[in-house]
């Protein structure tokens, strides 16, 4: 069993490697005399392989959105490194950063707020091309129209002059995806891309993301609190709790046989549209602790029914329970 993460099995198919990434937000004001802070992302290490869709799951406040923004350099980490195709991009600034932006893109949860209400559909999709001075004007227009067609806004001509206010929710999100993919990125972070859409159109957007992976070879990071959607779309999944990854592995395996007590609680809480499925008790006492005042040792121990003395003394690290499956727990559940 390969226990040491430090043994860098650098797979040549790795696109993104994250090492000990940490983001701390200072907390304004003091609590009990000590200056407190929020460890939004705490010493996180993982890899995303080329061509896969990697899922980040967790409840609100677990740090998944912050992690997504760190990966596309919308926020600077407090410490740690991010490697893209072997190159460390954490300290990129200025022109290097701008060039790197072409490779990594992001789409957000609220399609309407993600669009400038005064920019037309054509203007929105062309803007990244204008920023990076790609090709001639004619080329940019053609590329923009081609991208609109690729994301399913057909026929593109009909959409060019429209404003975000004229589009439906699904169309707006497709426009955001078009904007993100017009630069032919290698990596796309999708932060809750379907949570605000009606269920009957979510599948369309998810299919689009799948198509981008198959046809355009785009690697994806899918962030969501909805485990059912993540279960559908992703190849591997990481479950986050209060800034740390507590479990990581192939999606179907993690969902059907979780090893971490929190993963099991989370998965068992997800309702199924099948009324015959009676959910068993969700084994997680209480609520998520205040991120300012984290429990010592394992963060989940205050809610875990298997917690022992060791859990409050030391913090468990991610260890392999099988070749592809890692868990951060001293007493992982057995099947």
């Amino acid at each position, binding site marked *: 069993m390969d226990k040491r993460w430090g043994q860098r099995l650098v797979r040549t198919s790795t696109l993104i490697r994250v090492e000990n990434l940490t983001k701390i937000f200072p907390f304004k004001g003091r609590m009990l005399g000590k200056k407190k802070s929020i460890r939004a992302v705490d010493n996180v290490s993982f890899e995303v392989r080329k061509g896969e869709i990697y899922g980040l799951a967790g409840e609100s406040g677990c740090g998944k959105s912050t992690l997504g923004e760190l990966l596309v350099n919308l926020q600077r980490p407090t410490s740690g490194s991010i490697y893209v195709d072997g190159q460390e991009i954490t300290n990129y600034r200025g022109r290097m950063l701008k060039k790197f932006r072409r490779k990594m893109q992001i789409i957000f949860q609220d399609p309407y707020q993600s669009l400038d209400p005064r920019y037309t559909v054509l203007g929105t999709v062309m803007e990244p091309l204008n920023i990076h001075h790609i090709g001639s004007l004619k080329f940019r227009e053609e590329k923009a129209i081609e991208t609109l067609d690729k994301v399913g806004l057909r026929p593109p001509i009909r959409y060019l002059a429209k404003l975000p206010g004229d589009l439906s929710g699904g169309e707006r999100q497709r426009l955001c995806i078009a904007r993100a993919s017009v630069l032919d990125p290698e990596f796309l972070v999708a932060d809750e891309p379907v949570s605000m859409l009606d269920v*009957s159109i979510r599948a369309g957007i998810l299919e689009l993301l799948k198509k981008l992976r198959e046809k355009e070879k785009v690697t994806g990071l899918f962030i969501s609190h909805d*485990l059912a959607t993540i279960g559908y779309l992703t190849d591997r999944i990481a479950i986050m709790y209060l800034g740390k990854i507590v479990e990581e592995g192939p999606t179907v395996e993690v969902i059907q046989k979780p090893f971490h007590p929190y993963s099991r609680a989370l998965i068992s809480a997800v309702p199924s549209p099948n009324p015959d499925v009676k959910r068993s008790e969700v084994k997680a006492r209480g609520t998520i602790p205040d991120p300012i005042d984290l429990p010592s040792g394992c963060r989940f121990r205050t809610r875990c029914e298997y917690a022992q003395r060791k859990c409050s003394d030391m913090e468990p690290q991610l260890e392999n329970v099988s070749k592809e499956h890692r868990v951060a727990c001293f007493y992982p559940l057995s099947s």
Partner: protein
Amino acid sequence: MPLLVFRDLEVHYRTYAGMLRAVDGISLDLDRGEILGLVGESGCGKSTVAKSIMRLLPSDSIIKGTISFNGDNLVEKNEHEMTRIRGKEISLITQSAMNALDPVQRVGNQIVEAIRTHRKCSRGEARKEACELLELVGLEKRRFKNYAHELSGGQRQRVIIAMALVSSPKLVIADEPTTGLDVIMEFRILEHLRKLQSDLKLSILLISHDISITAQLAHKIAIMYAGKIMEYGPVSEVLKQKAYHPYTLGLLNAFPDIKNPRNELISIPGSPCDLVCEIKGCRFHERCPFSTEECFIKEPEWLNIKEGHYVRCHYPDKMEIFQKLSRERSTWIKDGDSD
């Protein structure tokens, strides 16, 4: 006799673009001690149904038809009579109700105030009852003296549920009660609602866009689309691919199931229709893969196909073919369409 009966309920809003038919003729029953789930996507009119029961519609709206509660027609009641019913016999829990808590009053006192509004009792008695209610919804007694901002979203929502139960209502309307809450919190609240319902013999009208939570909680389900009910029946039938209406079948395809995560998801092409324009035929015909000429011209009737199971479609007899075909992607997505 059912507790709540809708018969040909219509609610229209006057807008600058024309008359918006938010609710266009629905008929449903809710029996005592039963949970009815009203499911639909955004804009289908389900929130309007909730508001129309409580008669909390804007002044420029028109309401027609019957909402019979315990034999009384609520549509015909005036404001004075409605205030006696609202909050007492019928309670409403809305989506962001947790933000409706007074931020400068302790939550326990807010429950006490609600109690004393409804009947004469001393402060001491009301306090005792408030603590009991808090326990009933799964909060510790010490939460009485907390302020709203000291509680999490889920805890606040449970306070709202406690307040809704203050008057021992006969009917609770829960409009998207768990949207925006984390999944573990949602599970707890649904479990509490279920327990409350069985302990107190409550009747609940659960309004949601989420079929999964409706499947877990409700006994009967009604699928709403563009102001009309498309299908209505027991959850055990409608939600197990034994549905009759193509829209229901389409919705079932679109919901991921954590128990079978890799099941193919198929979306319904197109978008909900404009509620303002007058539509002759079936509301769903534009997006329905099985629609025919008749669907375009004539509106389908409300058919009682089985005991307690109704559907609004021209072809209920073709149910088996529909069920089989609806599971295939090619039925819904024609080549060249935006998928």
